[in-house]
C-alpha cells in the first residue's frame, strides 16, 4: 500500500512540474470566476500528498493564500476519506466517435454502476475522455457529452435527455457537494402582497456502497453562509406566504435548503459543512422479551426491553438503551429496522412511534403469537465524514 502511494506521489510530482503548479496557482487569483474555479478543481484533484507543497507555497496574495489553504485542507480530507472508505470509484476512458451504448457500458464497468439510457439513440456517436475521474465527475462528463442529465437511483444510474443546469459542485472522493436547485418564486394571492422569493438547494451525494448510520439526521449537511457578489450577506427569511417546505428526497443524498434575497447581486457564494456518520461495521443484536429488567450488552452499550405487550390491538414495547454517549446512540441504533421474533421463527416488523435518544417506543399493528424476542441492527463502528465546503458562482434563474 505504502509502495503504491509512493509511486503515485512520484507520478504526481513528475506530472505536475513546478512551473505547471505555479501556472495553476497563479490562476487562483484570476479575474474570471470560471478560471479560478477550474484552477481550484485542478489543484483539488492532485494527489493528496501535494497538500504540504501547497501549504508551503510562498505568495503575497492573501486571496491566493486562503484558496491554497482551503485546497490543502480538501486534499487532506480526501486522503482521510480514501483511507477510511477505500477506493473511490474512478474511470479512465478515451473513446472517440463510439456509440453511446458502448461508452455507457464502458463507463458503467469502470464505475461498477449500471447506466440506463432514457430516450437516447444507443447508436448515436459520442466522444468521452476521462483520466482517473471520480464517479461524480465521470457521470457529469457523460451527461455533458450528450446534453443529458443524470439520476442516481437505487436501481442504477439513469442518463436522460435534457441538458443539466450549470450548477457548481465539489467532489471529495466518494462524496460530492453540489447546488442541485436554484429557484425564483413569484406568487400572487388576493389576501396579501406575496413578495418574490428565491431559494437554493444543496445536496451531499455519496457512492451507493456507502451507508450513513441513519437517514434522518437534522444537520448532516448545513448551509452556513450565502454572500452576494459584493460580499454582502444574502440569506433571507422564509416568506410568510409559504406553506411547509416540500424538500425533494434523493436517494444516496442529504439536502439542505436556504432562502436568499431575490435581489442579491449575482453570483452568490454558498458555504457550509458536512457532518455525517457513515457505518463501517454493523451487527444484529438479538434479545429476549420475556424477562423484565433483563439487559443485553454490546460494547459499552446495554439494551432493555420494557413493557412488552402483544394483544389484539397489536404489539407495543419500549427499548431503553444506556451508554457513554447518548447522541451516539441515535447514530448507532437503526430504529427503522426492528423486528419481533415469534416462537415459530416468524418475524414481524414494528414501527418506531416516538421517544428520546435513550428510550424508543415501538408499535406493530398485528398481534404476535408467542413472541420470544426482538432483533435490530446496531452500528458497532462508524466514521464521521466532516468537512467544510464552498461553492462559488451560484446563479439564480
Amino acid at each position: 500500500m505504502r509502495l503504491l502511494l509512493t509511486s503515485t506521489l512520484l507520478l504526481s510530482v513528475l506530472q505536475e512540474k513546478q512551473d505547471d503548479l505555479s501556472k495553476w496557482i497563479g490562476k487562483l487569483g484570476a479575474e474570471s470566476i470560471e478560471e479560478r474555479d477550474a484552477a481550484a478543481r485542478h489543484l483539488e484533484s492532485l494527489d493528496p500528498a501535494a497538500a504540504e507543497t501547497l501549504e508551503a507555497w510562498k505568495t503575497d496574495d492573501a486571496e491566493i493564500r486562503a484558496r491554497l489553504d482551503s485546497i490543502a485542507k480538501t486534499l487532506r480530507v480526501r486522503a482521510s476519506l480514501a483511507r477510511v472508505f477505500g477506493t473511490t470509484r474512478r474511470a479512465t476512458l478515451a473513446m472517440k466517435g463510439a456509440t453511446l451504448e458502448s461508452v455507457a457500458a464502458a463507463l458503467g464497468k469502470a464505475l461498477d454502476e449500471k447506466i440506463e439510457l432514457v430516450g437516447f439513440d444507443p447508436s448515436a456517436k459520442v466522444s468521452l475522455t476521462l483520466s482517473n475521474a471520480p464517479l461524480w465527475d465521470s457521470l457529469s462528463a457523460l451527461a455533458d457529452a450528450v446534453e443529458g442529465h443524470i439520476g442516481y437511483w437505487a436501481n442504477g444510474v439513469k442518463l436522460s435527455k435534457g441538458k443539466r443546469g450549470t450548477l457548481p459542485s465539489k467532489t471529495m472522493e466518494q462524496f460530492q457537494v453540489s447546488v442541485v436547485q436554484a429557484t425564483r418564486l413569484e406568487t400572487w394571492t388576493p389576501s396579501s402582497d406575496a413578495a418574490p422569493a428565491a431559494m437554493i438547494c444543496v445536496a451531499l451525494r455519496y457512492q451507493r456502497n456507502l451507508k450513513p448510520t441513519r437517514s434522518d439526521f437534522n444537520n448532516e449537511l448545513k448551509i452556513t453562509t450565502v454572500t452576494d457578489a459584493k460580499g454582502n450577506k444574502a440569506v433571507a427569511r422564509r416568506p410568510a406566504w409559504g406553506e411547509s417546505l416540500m424538500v425533494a428526497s434523493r436517494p444516496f443524498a442529504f439536502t439542505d435548503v436556504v432562502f436568499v434575497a431575490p435581489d442579491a447581486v449575482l453570483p452568490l457564494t454558498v458555504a457550509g459543512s458536512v457532518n455525517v456518520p457513515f457505518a463501517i461495521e454493523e451487527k444484529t443484536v438479538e434479545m429476549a422479551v420475556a424477562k423484565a429488567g433483563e439487559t443485553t450488552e454490546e460494547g459499552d452499550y446495554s439494551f432493555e426491553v420494557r413493557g412488552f405487550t402483544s394483544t389484539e390491538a397489536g404489539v407495543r414495547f419500549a427499548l431503553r438503551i444506556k451508554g457513554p454517549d447518548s447522541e451516539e446512540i441515535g447514530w448507532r441504533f437503526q430504529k427503522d429496522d426492528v423486528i419481533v421474533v415469534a416462537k415459530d421463527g416468524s418475524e414481524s416488523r414494528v414501527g418506531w412511534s416516538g421517544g428520546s435518544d435513550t428510550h424508543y417506543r415501538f408499535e406493530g399493528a398485528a398481534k404476535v403469537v408467542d413472541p420470544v424476542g426482538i432483533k435490530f441492527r446496531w452500528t458497532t463502528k462508524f466514521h464521521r465524514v466532516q468537512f467544510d465546503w464552498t461553492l462559488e458562482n451560484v446563479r439564480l434563474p
Partner: protein
Amino acid sequence: MKQIALGLLLILPAQEKAPVRVTLSESGSFSALVRELSTQCGVTIAIDPSVDDKQIKVSVREATVLQALDALCRAHKGATYLGGANAWPPPRHLTLRAGDWVDYPSVTAGEFKILLDGWQRTKEITDAGADETQRLSLSALAPPNLRILLNGKETWSFSSIKDGKDNDLLLKESSEADGWDRTRLPLKTIGRHVGISRAVRVRPFDKDAGLKLIEGVLEADVVELEDVTISLDAGKETATALGTFVVSSSTPVKGSSRPETRVTLSLKEGTSLADAFEGFGTTDKAEDRWDYVNPTIKGAIAEFQVRAQDPGWIVLRIRKNTRRVKIPFRFENLSFAGEKK
C-alpha cells in the same frame, strides 16, 4: 378582483337531507349575530377574543352556512375564518379571528364553496435542466359540521383552463411531471382546518392578461361530524351513531412523565371503525381542550392514549354518514392585475 363565478348543481344521492339554510336580517353585535347563526345551523362557532365585538348589519336569506359566515365577516371587515396559524391540534370549533376579510374569487355549490386562493410561478435551474412552472391554487371549503376527507380518494378534474388570450393552459397530468423531484414552497392554504386544497400545474401564461376560464369538478368523500361523550367506566356501554361502544380497558400508562391513560374501545356490533374518528378528543370539559388522540384501529377495536389520569369519560369526534359528492366549479374572467394590497 373582477370575476364571475358560477356555482353549478351539486349532485348528491337522493336520500341525503337538504343542506342547512339560514336567514339573518338584522343589526346587532357581531357576537350576537354569530350566536344566532350557530343556533340556526346547530354548530358551535367560536369567536377569538381579539375580534372587536362591534355593531354590524347583515342581511342574508336562505343562505348556506358559509355564505352567512362570509356575510358576517364582510360586514365586520376585521374578522375572518380563513387562513390563520397552522395550529396543532386545530381548534375544536370553527373560530372567527381578527384579520382582514378578503373576498376570494369563489363558487358556491350546495353547502360547499370553492375558491381560487393563489397563483405561483417557479423558475428554476436544477441538475436536470432549466424549467418554468406555474400553478393555480384552489381550496374547497365545507360548513363546520361537515368534513371533506383528504383520504386519497379526492379527485380534482379540470375540463378547461384558458388564459385571457383563449390559450389552453391545461396540462395532461400523465405527460407532464408535477415537480415531485423538486424542492417546493407551496402557498399557504387558506382553507386550513375547514377544507382541502389543490395546486394545479398549468402551462406558463401571461398573468397580467388574466384567466378566461377555470372549469372542473371535485369529487370527494364527505362526512358529517359529531362529538360523542363516551363513558370510560369498564363495561359501560355508550350508544352513538356508529353503534354501541363498550370500554374494554382503561389503564394508566406506567413510566410516563405525565398523566396518561390508554383506552381500548370496541363496537358491540362488530362493525369496522376504519376512518370513523377525526383523531381528536378531549377529557377536559372546563378548558374545552382539544387533543390529538390518534386512535389505532383494528376492525371494531379502537385504542388510543389520552393526557389524563383516569378521566372517567372522553369526548371523541366521530365521522358518520359518509357520502360521495361532486362539486362542480366554473370561474370566468379572472383578473390578477393590480390586486395586491
